C-alpha cells in the first residue's frame, strides 16, 4: 500500500499541477513541493520502520500483490522492498524534494517543468519497488520521457543534442533489456515475469542463454550507470541539463543501473557473473582512472563533476565485481548513497554559482574564498567528501570497497584503482584552488553574492547526511546486512 502510494502520489500530484492555471507560478511550485513531501516522508518512515522491524531478514517487506494485472501474459502488479531498495528510496525521496526546491528559479514553462518532474519521481520510485519485470520495465521507460523533455526544453545551449543522445542511448540499452526479459519469460515454465521466482529460474537456464541474458542485461544497466565506455552521454546530459535535473540524474538515475544489476543481473545469473567478473572489474578500474584523468582536464565545472561521477561509479562497478565479498557489495551500496548525496550537492552548488556568474569556466574564477566564504566552505566540504576524506560518507564507501575488492579480486588491479584516490584529490583540489583560492578578480566578481538561505536549505540535509554516514555508518550497514548476505549467497550458487 505504502509502496503504491510512493509511485502514485507523485502521479496524482502531476495531475493536480496540470490542472493549475499556468501563470500561477508560485502555486505550481509550492504544490509540487508539498506533493513531493509526501513520498519523501513516506520513504523516511519506510526507512525507519524497515530498520526496526524488517532489517533482520532478507525477505521483501511491505509487499504489494502479486495481483494479476494482465493475466493472459501472467503479468503481475507486484511490489516490495528489501535492504538494497530502502536506501535508494530514501535517496530518491530526499533528492526529489531538494531538487524541486532548487528548481524554484525556473521561470520558463513552469507548469510543464514541475509536472514532468513529478512524473520523473513516480518513475524512479517505481523502479526501486517493482518486483515484476513488466512493471520494472514500464517504470524504467516512463522515466525516460520526462527526462528527455526536462533536458531538451529547459537545458543549456546544446540541449537538443544532449537530450536526444541521452534518450537514444538509454533506449538502446532498454532494447537489450527487453530482449533479455523476453528470453527469461519464454524459457520459464509457466511463463513468468516475477523477479522473485525467476531468481531460481536463471541458474537453471542453459549456459549460453545465461551468458546472453547476463550480457544483455549488463549492457542495459551499464549504459545507465554509466560504465566506461558507455559513459559519453553523461557529461553532455549533465552539462546541458538544468541544475535540479543534474542532481536527479547523478543522484538517482545512475544508481538505477547499479541497483538493477544488484537486483536482477547479479543474483539471477551467478555462473555467468563469475566468469565475467574479472572483466567487469577491469571496466570498473578503467572507469575510475579514466574518469579521474579526464575530469582533471576539464575546464567546465559541471563537466568536471560529471566526469568525477564516471570515476565514482567506477568504484561501484569494481565493488560489484567482487561478488563474494559482503563488504564490497555493502561498499557499493554506500558509494551509491554517498555519491548521490555528494554529487547531488556538488551539482546544486555549481548551479548556485552559475546562476550568479553565468559561467562555469573554472579559469574565469579565482580567489572567491574571500568574497563568498559560506559558499566556499560548503563547496570545500563537499569537494573533500568527494575525494574521500574520512569523516564523510565517501571515505567509508571507498574503504569498504577497497578492502572487499582487495580480498576478492586481482590485487594488482585493485592496487591500480587505488591511484584513483590520488587522482581524485588532484582534480578536486585543482578545482578548489582555481575557483576559490588565489587572487581575486575584483573588477569582474565584485558583485558576487553569497549563497542564500533557500540554497543552503537545499544542500544542508545532504551535508548533514554525508557527515552522519561518514561518522556513524553502522545504521546503514545494519539496514542492509541481511539482504546483502542473502544476495551474496545467491551469487554463490
Amino acid at each position: 500500500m505504502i509502496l503504491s502510494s510512493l509511485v502514485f502520489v507523485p502521479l496524482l500530484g502531476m495531475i493536480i499541477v496540470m490542472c493549475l492555471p499556468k501563470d500561477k507560478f508560485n502555486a505550481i511550485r509550492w504544490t509540487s513541493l508539498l506533493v513531493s513531501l509526501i513520498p519523501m516522508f513516506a520513504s523516511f518512515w519506510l526507512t525507519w520502520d524497515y530498520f526496526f522491524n524488517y532489517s533482520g531478514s532478507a525477505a521483501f517487506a511491505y509487499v504489494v500483490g502479486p495481483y494479476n494485472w494482465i493475466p493472459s501474459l501472467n503479468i503481475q502488479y507486484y511490489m516490495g522492498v528489501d535492504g538494497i531498495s530502502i536506501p535508494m528510496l530514501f535517496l530518491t525521496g530526499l533528492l526529489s524534494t531538494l531538487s524541486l526546491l532548487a528548481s524554484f528559479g525556473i521561470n520558463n514553462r513552469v507548469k510543464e517543468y514541475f509536472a514532468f518532474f513529478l512524473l520523473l519521481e513516480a518513475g524512479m520510485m517505481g523502479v526501486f519497488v517493482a518486483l515484476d519485470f513488466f512493471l520494472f520495465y514500464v517504470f524504467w521507460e516512463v522515466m525516460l520521457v520526462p527526462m528527455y523533455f526536462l533536458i531538451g526544453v529547459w537545458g543549456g545551449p546544446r540541449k537538443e543534442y544532449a537530450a536526444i543522445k541521452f534518450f537514444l542511448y538509454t533506449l538502446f540499452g532498454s532494447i537489450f533489456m527487453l530482449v533479455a526479459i523476453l528470453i527469461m519469460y519464454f524459457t520459464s515454465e509457466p511463463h513468468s515475469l516475477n523477479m522473485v521466482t525467476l531468481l531460481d529460474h536463471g541458474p537453471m537456464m542453459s549456459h549460453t542463454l545465461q551468458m546472453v541474458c547476463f550480457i544483455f542485461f549488463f549492457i542495459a544497466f551499464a549504459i545507465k550507470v554509466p560504465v566506461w565506455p558507455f559513459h559519453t552521454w553523461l557529461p553532455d546530459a549533465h552539462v546541458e541539463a538544468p541544475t535540479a535535473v543534474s542532481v536527479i540524474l547523478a543522484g538517482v538515475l545512475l544508481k538505477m543501473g547499479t541497483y538493477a544489476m544488484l537486483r536482477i543481473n547479479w543474483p539471477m545469473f551467478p555462473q555467468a557473473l563469475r566468469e565475467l567478473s574479472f572483466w567487469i572489474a577491469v571496466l570498473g578500474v578503467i572507469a575510475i582512472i579514466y574518469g579521474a584523468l579526464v575530469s582533471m582536464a576539464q575546464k567546465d565545472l559541471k563537466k568536471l563533476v560529471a566526469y568525477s561521477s564516471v570515476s565514482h561509479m567506477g568504484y561501484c562497478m569494481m565493488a560489484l565485481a567482487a561478488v563474494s565479498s559482503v563488504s564490497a557489495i555493502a561498499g557499493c551500496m554506500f558509494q551509491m548513497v554517498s555519491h548521490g548525496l555528494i554529487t547531488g550537492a556538488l551539482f546544486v552548488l555549481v548551479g548556485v554559482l552559475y546562476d550568479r556568474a553565468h559561467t562555469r569556466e573554472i579559469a574565469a574564477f579565482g580567489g572567491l574564498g574571500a568574497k563568498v566564504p559560506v559558499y566556499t566552505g560548503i563547496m570545500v566540504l563537499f569537494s573533500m567528501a568527494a575525494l574521500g576524506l574520512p569523516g564523510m560518507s565517501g571515505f567509508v564507501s571507498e574503504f569498504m570497497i577497497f578492502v572487499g575488492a582487495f580480498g576478492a579480486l586481482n590485487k594488482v588491479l585493485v592496487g591500480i584503482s587505488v591511484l584513483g584516490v590520488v587522482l581524485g584529490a588532484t582534480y578536486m583540489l585543482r578545482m578548489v584552488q582555481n575557483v576559490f583560492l588565489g587572487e581575486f578578480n575584483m573588477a569582474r566578481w565584485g558583485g558576487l553574492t553569497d549563497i542564500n538561505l533557500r540554497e543552503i536549505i537545499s544542500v544542508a540535509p545532504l551535508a548533514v547526511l554525508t557527515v552522519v554516514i561518514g561518522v556513524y555508518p553502522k545504521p546503514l550497514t545494519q539496514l542492509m546486512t541481511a539482504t546483502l548476505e542473502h544476495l551474496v549467497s545467491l551469487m554463490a550458487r
Partner: protein
Amino acid sequence: MTEFSFLIPLLPLFSFVMIIFFLRWKEMLSAVFSIVMILAAWVMSIIVLIETIARHGDNYEAFYKFVDLPNFVLEIGVLIDPLTAIMLVVVTTVGACVEIYSVGYMHNDPRFSRFFAYLSLFLFSMLGLVVANNFFMIFIFWELVGLTSYLLIGFWFEKKSAADACKKAFITTRMGDLGFLVGLFIIGIYFGTFNYLRVFDIAGSGMIPAGILTAAAIFVFCGAVGKSAQWPLHVWLPDAMEGPTPVSALIHAATMVAAGVYLVARSMPLFVTSGDASMVVAIIGLITSFIAASIGLVQNDIKRVLAYSTVSQLGYMIMALGLYGYDHFHGQHSPGFYAGTFHLYTHAFFKGLLFLGAGSVIHAVHTNDIQEMGGLGRKMKKTALTFMIASLSIAGIFPLSGFWSKDEIVAAASHHPVFFIGTLTIAFMTAFYMWRLCFLTFFGEPRDQHRYDHAHESPNNMTYPLIFLAVLSVCAGWVGVPYLSHGFASFVFHDEAYHPHPNYLLWAVSTIVGGGGIILAYLMYYKKSISADAMANRFKRIYKLLYNKWYFDEIYQKILIDPVMSIASFMWKFDANVIDGAVNGTGWLTIKWSDIKEWFDTWIVDGAVNGTGWIVRQGANILRFLQTGSMQFYALFIAALVVLFGIYRFETSMMEGDEPIFTIGFIIAVVLLAVAAKLLQGRPQTDRQAESEE
C-alpha cells in the same frame, strides 16, 4: 581519568564547532575559548600520563563498532599506552604554546577566528590520530590531519604560492596515503582485523607469511613517508612554509610530521617481524636525513632552513626506528626504538621553539630572507636567547635535551658503519646550518638597516611560550638520561626496565662533531675567516645542486606532473573524439542508414503500397458504375440478388454437392448484372438530354 581520555581529542573538536557556528564573530572569545579547550586537554593528558605510568604497562582500550558487517568490522576506539600518553602530552603542550603564541602573531588577520577554528580542528585530528586503537581509525585521522594542514597551509590563499603549496602538500601526502591504504588492505585481508593489539599478536605469532608481513610493513611505511616528508615525498614540506608561522611550528615541526614517526613507532611490533622492511625504513630515513641536511646548508629562507632541518631530523628518527626493527629481527639488542621516539619527543619542543622564534623574527622584520637580517640579537634578546638554546639543543650539545636523544640514535647506528658515518655527518651538518642561521640572524652587522630599525621584540604572549619551550628544550631530555632505570625508555618498552648504558666515548664523539659544526659556522659567518662566498664558488656545482634542492621539484614536474597532465588532456581528447566520436559516428551511420531506408521506403515499400492503391482505384473505376445514385437501381439490385440467391439455394438444396459450380455461377450472374447496369447507365442521360431537348 583515563576512562575519559576519549574526551581529549573531542575538546578541540568542540572548540572548532563552537567557533565555526557561534563564536566566529567574536575574535577574542574564539581565541580564548580554543586556548581554554586545549589547556583542558593538556591537563587531562598530563593526568592520563601520570595514571599510565602508575598502571605499569597495563593498556587501556575502549571502542565501539563503526561498521559491523559479517567478516568485516571497523572500530573506533581509544588505546592508551605509554607511547600514546607521552604523545598526547607532546601534542597538547606544543599545541597550547602555539595557540597562545598565535594570539599575538595573527592579531590583525581578517580571518583570525577561523585560524583558531582550524588550529582546533587540527589538534582534534592529531589527538585522534594519537589515541586511535586501530589502523583504520588512525587512517581516518591521518587524512583529517591532511585536510586541516591543507586548510592551514592555504590559510592565506590569496597568495598563489600558498594556494599551490597547500594543494601540493595534500596531494603529495596523499600519494603516501595510497601506500598506507594498500597496507591497510593487506592487514584487513590477511589479519582480518585492524586493531593494533590483535594485529601485533597475529604478526608475532608467525601465522602470516614473511612476504605478506614485509609488504604490509612497507606499505604502512609509505604513509609515514608521505606524512613525515621522507624522501622521495619530502618536497611538500618546505613549500608548506607558506602557511602562517605558528602553523609551521605546529604542523611541520611538532605534530603532523611527527605522525609518520609515530605511526612507525606504533607499528613497531609489525616492523620487527620483517628485517627487510625495517632495512628499507632505515635506508629511506638515512637518505632523507642526508639530502635534507645538505639542502639546509645553503638555503636563505629562515623557515625553509628549519623545514629542511625538520625533514632531516625526521629522517634521523625514522632511521633509528628502522635500525631497531632490523636489529631486533636479527636478535640483537638496539636502543633504536627508544632513541627514535625519544628524539621525537625532544625534537617537538626545540623545533617548535625554533619555528616560533623564527616567527617572532619574521614578525619583527617582515621578511624570511636571512641575508636581509643580522644583528637582531641586540633588539630581540628573549627571542635570540631562546632560539640559541634550541639551536644548541638540536646540535646535540651536552646536557640539553637534544644531546640525550641524538646520542641514543648515534648509539643505535653504531653497529652499522654506513649508518654510523651518516649520522655523524648529518649531526655535523645540522650543527653547522643551525648556527649559520643563528649567526646570520642575530649576530653581526645588520645587512638591511631599514628592517633592522623597525625590528622590535615581540609581545609577551609570544615570548612566554618561547621561554616555556626553551625550558623544556633544556630539561625535557633529562627524563631519558641513561642513569635512570625507569626513564623514558620504560615508556616505550611498557615498563620493562631498560638500561641504556652510558657510552662516554660516543658522547665525546658526538659532542665533538656537533661542536665542530658550530665552530665552522662561527668561523664562516661570524669571524668571516673562511669566506662563505669563496666556498660557494669553489664548489659551484654542488652549491647549485644544493641550492636548487637537488632539483627534485623540477624532476617531479618533468617525470610525474607533466606526463599526468598530458595523459589527462589526451584522455579528454580521446574521450571527446574517439569514444564520443564512436557514439556520434554510430548516430551518423544510423542517420545515413535511415536515408537509405527512406529511399527504399519511398520507392519500394511505398511503391508497393501505392501500387496496391492504384490497382484498387482502377478496379473501383469500373465498379463505380454500379453506384448510379438511383435508389431504384439499388432496389432492383437487391431484388435481383434475392431472386438469384433464392435460385441458388434452391438448386443446391435440390442437387446436393457441386456447390462450387453454383457459387461460381452465382458470382458470374452478379457480374453480369453489374455489366447490365453499366449498359443501362448510359441511357438515362441520353434520355434526359433528349427530354430537355424536347
